C-alpha cells in the first residue's frame, strides 16, 4: 500500500512590472507499507509459515527560487533573463520485521505468534542536489531567437572533489517564413511555415546512482550473537558526473496551409564519463563492483516526424502521423586498463560485451557450426575459428575434426563480439479516423537492425530432463542426417547453450506491432442532451494486439533480464508485453 502526500507552497511577487520573483517549496512524501503473509499450508510458507512487514518513508522536498526579468529594450528587441536556485533533498527511511515459524496455523497476521523474528527492509539513506542556473532569452521581432543557459549542479553521491558540474548550453532559431524575402521568392506558396533551429548544450546525468555510490563501507553483522564488521560496498572516490554534449539541428515546416507538418532533426550526443559498476576479477575479493566513469560514446542520428490533416469533412476525418528515428551508437573510449566491458544479467548469465569502436552492449556469443551429420555432435567454433566437436559422454569431450583433443570451449576464450543488440532504427505510425459518431484509432510501432539473444531457447533444449520444445523432434538420430539439433544425450547442458550463450539462439529483433487500437461510438448529442448528459461513449480498446516478427520468443521488445543498458537484448524466460482488451462506457455530465 502506498500513500502519497504532495504539498506545494507557491509565493509569487512582482516588485516591478519587469521583475517576477518566485519561490516554490514542494514536498512529496511516499509512505509505503508492505505486508506479506505466507501460510504454512503451501507455497513459500510451507511448512512453517512466515510473514514480512516493512514500512518505508520516502521524503522529498524541492525548493526553487527564481527571479525573472523581462524587458523590451527597444522596439522588437525582447529580452528575458531567469536566475535561480533549486535544491532537492530526498531521504529514505525504512524498517520492518521478518518472522518465521508460525505458532498456530489458525493465525494469519504478522502480529500473531511466531517463534523467530528477524529484520526486514532496513534502509536509511539520503541524497541532495543543489543547482544554480541562469537562462537568457532574446528575440528580435519573433524572427530570430537566441537563448543561452548555464547551470551548476552539485550532487551528494559523487566523490568528495567531484560533486560539482558546470553545464552550459545555447540555442538559435530562425523563423524564415516571417522574413520579407520569403514571400517575395514565393516560398510561402509552398511552405506555410518554415523554421530552422539548432542547439548545443552540455547536461549531467546522475540517474540511477546509489545515494552513497562513491563511498566504501564496512557493515555490521552477527557471528553467534556477537557483532561483526566486514566490507559491504566498494566505492570510488573519483566518481563524478556522467555528461553528455548534445548537438541538435533541425527544420520544422508546414505545407498546404499547415495541413501537413514535418520535423527533420539531426542529433549527435557525445556522452563522456559513462558510469558503470565495473566487474573486477572475482579473486580480488571486493565487496561489490565499484562504480566508475568508465568511458565515452556517442549516439547520433536522424529523427523525422510527419503529421497530416489528411481528410477533414463534416462526417469524416483522418489524421495520420508517422515518425522514424535512426540511431548510431559507438563507444569511443573506455578507462585505461579496461579494453572491454563485459556485462552479466541478474541471472548471472554473461551475455554482453562493450568494446571501443563498437556499439554498447553487443551480444557476446560463442559461435557454432551446425551439427555433424556423421555423429550428431554439436560443432562449436573456437576463438581462432576452428571447429570443435562436443560429445557429452566422450572420453574426450572436446575434439577437433581430426579427433585430436581440443581445449574445452569457454566463453572467456572463444566468444566473440557477435552482433549489435541495439536497434538501428525505430518509430511509429498512428492513425485516427472519425466517421459521424464513430471513432477509430490505432498505433503501429516498429524497430529494425538489432539482435536479441533468446536465452529461453537454450533452456527449452536442455537435456537435463527439462521440458523441451517440439524442435527436439528434429534431433539427430541417424548418420547422414542433416539437422540443427544434436543427438540427445541425457544431462547434456552444453550442446544447446545452457552453459554459454550460443549463436543458434540469436535472432533479429525486427518487428512491426499493432501497439494499440481503439474503436468507439458516441450517441448523438441530441439524444444525450435529453438525458441531461454531456457525452456518452461506448468503446473497445486493446494493447499489443498483433505482432509481426521472425523472433521466436514471446516479444522482441521485452528485454527485462538485464538491469541496465550494458546488458540489453537478452531474453531468458521473460514474459511478453501483456495483451489487454478493455471494453467500456464513458459518461460525461
Amino acid at each position: 500500500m502506498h500513500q502519497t502526500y504532495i504539498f506545494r507552497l507557491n509565493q509569487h511577487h512582482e516588485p516591478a512590472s519587469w521583475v517576477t520573483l518566485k519561490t516554490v517549496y514542494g514536498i512529496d512524501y511516499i509512505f509505503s507499507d508492505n505486508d506479506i503473509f505466507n501460510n504454512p499450508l503451501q507455497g513459500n510458507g510451507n511448512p512453517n509459515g512466515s510473514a514480512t512487514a516493512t514500512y518505508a518513508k520516502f521524503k522529498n522536498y524541492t525548493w526553487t527560487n527564481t527571479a525573472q526579468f523581462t524587458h523590451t529594450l527597444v522596439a522588437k528587441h525582447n529580452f528575458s533573463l531567469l536566475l535561480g536556485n533549486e535544491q532537492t533533498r530526498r531521504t529514505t527511511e525504512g524498517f520492518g520485521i521478518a518472522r518465521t515459524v508460525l505458532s498456530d496455523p489458525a493465525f494469519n497476521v504478522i502480529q500473531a505468534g511466531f517463534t523467530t523474528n528477524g529484520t526486514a527492509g532496513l534502509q536509511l539513506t539520503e541524497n541532495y542536489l543543489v543547482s544554480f542556473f541562469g537562462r537568457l532569452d532574446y528575440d528580435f521581432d519573433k524572427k530570430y531567437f537566441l537563448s543561452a543557459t548555464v547551470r551548476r549542479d552539485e550532487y551528494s553521491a559523487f566523490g568528495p572533489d567531484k560533486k560539482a558540474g558546470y553545464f552550459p548550453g545555447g540555442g538559435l532559431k530562425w523563423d524564415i517564413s516571417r522574413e520579407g524575402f520569403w514571400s517575395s521568392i514565393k516560398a510561402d506558396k509552398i511552405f506555410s511555415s518554415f523554421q530552422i533551429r539548432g542547439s548545443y548544450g552540455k547536461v549531467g546525468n546522475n540517474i540511477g546512482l546509489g545515494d552513497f555510490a562513491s563511498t566504501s563501507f564496512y557493515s555490521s553483522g552477527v557471528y553467534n550473537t556477537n557483532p561483526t564488521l566486514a566490507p559491504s560496498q566498494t566505492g570510488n572516490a573519483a566518481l563524478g558526473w556522467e555528461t553528455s554534449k548534445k548537438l541538435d539541428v533541425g527544420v520544422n515546416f508546414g505545407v498546404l496551409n499547415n495541413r501537413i507538418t514535418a520535423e527533420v532533426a539531426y542529433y549527435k550526443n557525445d556522452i563522456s564519463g559513462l558510469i558503470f559498476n565495473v566487474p573486477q576479477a572475482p579473486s580480488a575479493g571486493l565487496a561489490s563492483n565499484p562504480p566508475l566513469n568508465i568511458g565515452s560514446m556517442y549516439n547520433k542520428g536522424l529523427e523525422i516526424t510527419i503529421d497530416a490533416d489528411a481528410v477533414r469533412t463534416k462526417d469524416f476525418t483522418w489524421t495520420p502521423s508517422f515518425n522514424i528515428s535512426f540511431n548510431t551508437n559507438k563507444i569511443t573510449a573506455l578507462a585505461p586498463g579496461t579494453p572491454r566491458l563485459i556485462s552479466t544479467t541478474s541471472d548471472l548469465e554473461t551475455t554482453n560485451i562493450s568494446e571501443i569502436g563498437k556499439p554498447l552492449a553487443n551480444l557476446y556469443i560463442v559461435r557454432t557450426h551446425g551439427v555433424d551429420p556423421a555423429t550428431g555432435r554439436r560443432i562449436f567454433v573456437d576463438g581462432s575459428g576452428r571447429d570443435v566437436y562436443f560429445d557429452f559422454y566422450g572420453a574426450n569431450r572436446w575434439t577437433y575434426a581430426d579427433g585430436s583433443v581440443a581445449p574445452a570451449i569457454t566463453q572467456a576464450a572463444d566468444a566473440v563480439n557477435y552482433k549489435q543488440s541495439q536497434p538501428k532504427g525505430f518509430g511509429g505510425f498512428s492513425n485516427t479516423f472519425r466517421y459521424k459518431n464513430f471513432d477509430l484509432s490505432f498505433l503501429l510501432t516498429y524497430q529494425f537492425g538489432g539482435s536479441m539473444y533468446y536465452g529461453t531457447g537454450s533452456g527449452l533444449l536442455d537435456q537435463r530432463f527439462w521440458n523441451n520444445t517440439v524442435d527436439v523432434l528434429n534431433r539427430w538420430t541417424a548418420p547422414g542426417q542433416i539437422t540443427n539439433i544434436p543427438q540427445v544425450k541425457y544431462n547434456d547442458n552444453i550442446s544447446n547453450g545452457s552453459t554459454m550463450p550460443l549463436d543458434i539462439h540469436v535472432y533479429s529483433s525486427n518487428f512491426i506491432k499493432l501497439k494499440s487500437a481503439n474503436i468507439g461510438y458516441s450517441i448523438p448529442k441530441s439524444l444525450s442532451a435529453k438525458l441531461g448528459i454531456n457525452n456518452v461513449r461506448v468503446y473497445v480498446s486493446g494493447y499489443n494486439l498483433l505482432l509481426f516478427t521472425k523472433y521466436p520468443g514471446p516479444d522482441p521488445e521485452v528485454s527485462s533480464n538485464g538491469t541496465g543498458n550494458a546488458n540489453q537484448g537478452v531474453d531468458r524466460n521473460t514474459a511478453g508485453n501483456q495483451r489487454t482488451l478493455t471494453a467500456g462506457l464513458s459518461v460525461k455530465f
Partner: protein
Amino acid sequence: MKKKFLMILGMGVMLNYSCQKDKLSPISQTSVTNDDNFLQFTTAPRIQAQVLALYANLRSGVFMGGRYQVYQEIKADNWINLSNNGVTNTATWNQSVTGTTTEVQTLWNQAYFTINNCNLFIDGMAAKGAAIVTPAQAANYVAEAKFIRALCYYDLLQMYARPYYDGNGSKPGVPLRLTGNAVYGNYDLARSSVAEVYAQVVKDLNEAEAGLPLIYADAATITTRAHRNTAIALKTRVYLTMQQYANVITEANKIVGTANFTASAGSAPAGGVNNALQADVTNVFKAPYTTTESIFSLPFITTETPGTQNQLGFYFYNNGSVLNAEYYLNPAGVVADANWKATDKRRVSFIIASTNAARLGFRFLAKYAQPSPYTDWAPVIRYAEVLLNLAEARARVNGVDAQAIALLNAIRGRSDASTVFTAGSFAGGPALVDAILQERNIELLGEGLRNTDLVRLGLTIPAKSGGAPAVPASDPRYIWPIPNNELLYNKLATPN
C-alpha cells in the same frame, strides 16, 4: 513590505546555501566508512568485530556453512540425487559442471571474498590496529586471520586444482593473493602452482599456531574460533592431503597422546584445549555442539541460519518429518559395508530409513536433524578426524602399526564395542590403510571430506546410479573448472 519580502527571500536563499555543505557530504549512519583514515580500526570493539566477520564470511551458507561440505559429499560416491534440481547441485553430483555453473562461481567468490577480508585485516592491523589493542591481542587476531586464510586456500585447492600427488604440486593452483584489495584496480594475476599455494597454507598455519590463543573463556567460543589446536589439527589434514605423512605424525603428536588419545596428553606445551573423543558420538551432533571433540565448527542459531538450500540438513535429512531430502544415501556406497554392523551406534543413530510411503527403503543421514530453520552447526574439524589422520599416516609410514590400530579401535570401539581390530586382522600395511580409509568414510560421512579422500589418492570417483559417470583421475571432470568470470576479468587466469 516589498523590501521586507526581498530581504526574507534573500536571507532564505543564503541560509539555505550555507547549510547545504554538510548535506552534500552525508555520512552514513548505518555503516563505517572505509577511507584513508582506517575508521574500521579505530576502536578495539571494531577490530574484534572484524575478526568475527572473517568467521562469518567463512560461515556463509555457500561456503563452509554448508555447501562446501555438500559439494565434497555429492561429487563423491555416497549420495544419490533425488530432486534433479540444478540449484541443489545436480551438476556437481553428475560431474557436469562448467565454468558458468552457479556453485562453481559462488564458492570461488565467497572464498576469495573471505581471503581478501583476511588480507585487508592483516594489512590494517599493521597500519593502524596494532596500536589500538594490546600486542598479545593483536597477535591473536592476526593469527586467526591467517588460520582462516589458510582454510580458504586449502578448500579452493580441493575443488579447483589437481591433487598434490599429481606432479608433486607442479600443476596450476589458484591465484595467490596476500594483500588486501579495497578499490578498483588491475587485478590480473596468474595462478600459482599447487605447491606454492600449499606452501602458503602451511606457512599461515605455522604462524597461526604460534599466534593463536591456547584457549578461550567458554565452550562456545572454543568451538567457534580458532585456538592453537585448531591450527595444528588443520595441518594434519593439509599434510595428509599432500601425502606428507611424516609431517602428519609430527603435527598430530602435538595434540594426540601416545597412549591416552587426548590433546593434553600430546607434546604441545600445556594450557591448550583438551580435545578428546566423546564416549557417545551422537553428543557431538547435538546442541550445544560444543563438546571437546568439535575442534572447530561454524555456529547456527534461529536468527543466524545457513540460508535457503544451503543447509546440511536440507540436503541430507530435511527435517526428519518427511524424510525427503535432496540426496539419499547411495545403497552401493558406504552403507553397503557389511562390516559396519547394524548395532554400530553410527548406523543406529545416524542412518535413518524413510517412513514416507513414496520413499520406503531410502536412507538418509540424521547427523543434521534440526528442522527448519536448520540450526545444526556445520562441522569443520573434529578430533576424530585428527585421530584418523594420524592413524593413516602411521600405517603408511610404519605398515601394521600398533598405535594406528589403537587409534582405529578408538573410533570404531566407541560406537561398536563388539568389533576390535588386532595386528592379526590385517595382511599388511595396505590392508590397515584400507580399513582406516573405510573408517573415515563411516565416521566422517556427511562432513565434507569424502571427495578429497578420493582425489588426494588419485582414486576413481565411482559411477552412481541415475546418471553420474565414473570419473578417473585423468578425466578433466576430476576437478572443477575455473569459474568463467575469473577467466573473463582476470586476464592472466588460465582454465583447467
